């Protein structure tokens, strides 16, 4: 049972993170298409934002099993 809930928790986290990553990609691509000359800067900022959002999913992977134990 806990295994299922564990999977569900990670799935939920992945859902949210997926939406977040998509929104970042969306914004970055719109910005790039509006200002092709600023692609370098936008890419750097986008990568940082992606890294922060990605971390949320990774944290979930490590925290969900532990919290279910208690």
């Amino acid at each position, binding site marked *: 049972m806990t295994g299922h809930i564990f999977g569900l928790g990670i799935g939920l986290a992945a859902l949210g993170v997926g939406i977040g990553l998509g929104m970042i990609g969306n914004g970055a691509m719109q910005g790039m298409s509006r200002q092709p000359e600023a692609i370098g800067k936008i890419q750097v900022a986008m990568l940082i934002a992606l890294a922060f959002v990605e971390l949320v999913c990774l944290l979930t*992977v*490590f*925290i969900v*099993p*532990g919290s279910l*134990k208690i």
Partner: protein
Amino acid sequence: MSNAKQSSGPPAIVGIVVGAALMFGGFWFSKNVKLEFIKTLEAQGIPLDPGKTISIIGVLLILFPVIKFFFIAPLAEAIQNRTTELERTFGEAENLRAEMTQMKQDYERRLVQTEADAREQIQSQIKEAQSLRQQMMAEASAKAEELKASAAREIETQKQQAIAELRHHVVELALQATEKLVEANVDDERNRKLVADFLETVEAPR
């Protein structure tokens, strides 16, 4: 900047000594110390070994200065040198090009100048030749005129002379004829004058 860093920061040897100490400390820690919260973390699927972390910090403390002095500093210096070298070379080339452009302009200017000079000289020569020709022609025609005039004068003189001679002969003949005719000597000063006067009147309408 980097010199300031060298002087103010701790020397690399301290980092290496501390790093080595941390490495062995980490080894000891990893083998002998079991912390309670590490087990909790491991239960959560987070595999953390502080001994390894301590050792890695030691390794990195050694590694950073070593790599910096072994490779990155020479690399940066080489890149810097190359950049300055390139800049110098480009500057030199630029200078040479400017000089060359200057020389080319000079040369072109001089070429134009020379051409103009040559043309002017040719023009002046032509003009001189023409004036000379004019002068020679004028001289020649003047000479011809003179020759013509002198010839005319001579002809005139000869004519006059011939006329005078002729008149003289005519007077002689007339007097001789008259003498034979009248058998008397009429050859005196008065008759001669008479005939000459007559000839004058004959000559006059001609």
